[in-house]
């Protein structure tokens, strides 16, 4: 089977890869580009662990073919921190112990960062609805929501 050549941008870096037509963006991020932050939870778009942004739009990378990434700008959890300096969301997740096993965490970070870029001052209800497709089986969500609200407040203060 002939491979497809894709030119794209991942976390601001120009990136090229070859992929099979059936490979998902998630497969390529993890297996060809060694960006293993996005996780495969369900593979059917239900759990949100594979969340990334494509041209600024939040999507499930298991529900997009890698070949569709041609010319797109991909954002993953690996692009959230600035070098060694954690993003406020990442710091607040640690402070609030908003994770246990951590499998859902990269997807949730990508999702809420995208929300806060659209709305820096969301209500708790907005955050909960935004994250309805990000499943966490450890925390019960309350700590996640507290961490997001706290990070949003800090980011508004810093702006």
């Amino acid at each position, binding site marked *: 089977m002939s491979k*497809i050549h894709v030119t794209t941008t991942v976390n601001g870096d120009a990136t090229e890869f070859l992929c099979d*037509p*059936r490979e*998902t963006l998630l497969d390529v991020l993890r297996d060809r580009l060694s960006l293993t932050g996005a996780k495969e939870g369900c*593979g*059917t*778009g*239900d759990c*949100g662990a594979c*969340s990334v942004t*494509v041209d600024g*739009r*939040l*999507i*499930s990378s*298991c*529900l*997009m*073919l890698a*070949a*569709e990434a041609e010319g797109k700008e991909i954002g993953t959890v690996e692009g959230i921190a600035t070098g060694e300096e954690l993003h406020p969301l990442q710091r607040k997740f640690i402070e609030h112990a908003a994770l246990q096993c951590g499998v859902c965490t990269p997807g949730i970070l990508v*999702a809420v960062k995208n929300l806060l870029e659209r709305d820096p001052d969301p209500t708790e209800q907005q955050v909960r*609805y*935004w*994250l*309805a*497709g*990000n499943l966490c089986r450890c925390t019960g969500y309350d700590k996640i929501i507290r961490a997001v609200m706290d990070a949003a407040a800090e980011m508004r203060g810093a702006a």
Partner: protein
Amino acid sequence: MRYHTPESFEDASAIAAGAEGVTRYLAGGTDILVQMRSDIVTPDDLIDIKHIVGVKEIARSDDGGWRIGAAVAGAELGEHDGVGADWPGVVEAMELVGSTQVQGRATLTGNLCNASPAADSVPAMIAAGATVSVTGPDGPRKIAVEDVPTGPGQISLVRGEVVTAVNLPARGPGGGDAYLRFTPRTEMDIAVVGCGISLTRDGDTITSARVALGAVAPTALLVEAAAAALVGGTLDDGALDALAAAAEAACNPIDDKRGTIRFRTHVAGVLARRVAKIAYDRAGGAK
């Protein structure tokens, strides 16, 4: 599997018409990728329509309605002020589909052509009087949304035909629409029953109406008897009773884990009453 990226719908149609195996179109992919992964569908040819100019556009049509490109995602539709002002019921129905992540990709056209009886946007589009534009080997045509699904997973398009856009008619004065569904959870669930209603008012009197039900039959239903119960009246208790009775009478649901036949039939009447009130208030100028 061959992955195609045609740059026109004529080319997309020609690829599909000339293909011999299993062919699928790819827009948002939120259904087809799940089906491919679980080996429900194994396409020989997958035709990605997103390289075609205009598929991501929402534009005013000449008749004052809206033309929504086949690859416009739910989130993009929801962020568009014009469509939401004219057809809030269609937009709220599409926004009920899946998660934020799914909204980033899923399309009205895909929700229709996947042909799930429970698809949320379909009753709302039927109520709105929406059509789809289709390109095919015999040229372009328009099909009413209610004539697209023919059964679960089945649509009336022939080989080589492809949906290019959804067309919503001009809203005109005194119009309002709404959609509600029943689900045990508020998010991330599939409709047990869905109901879309669009109507127009002249003062307090309803001058036209369309009522559609989802998840109570093999396809979404346009229920003309339910609309007839509304037209000419002012949505008094008698009209609401007649509406609910007509909605219940149209139901032909299955018994499954989401709801029994009896429950679904009852809920269809309850939702029809609620949706009619919202559409009526919106037609009267309420936001």
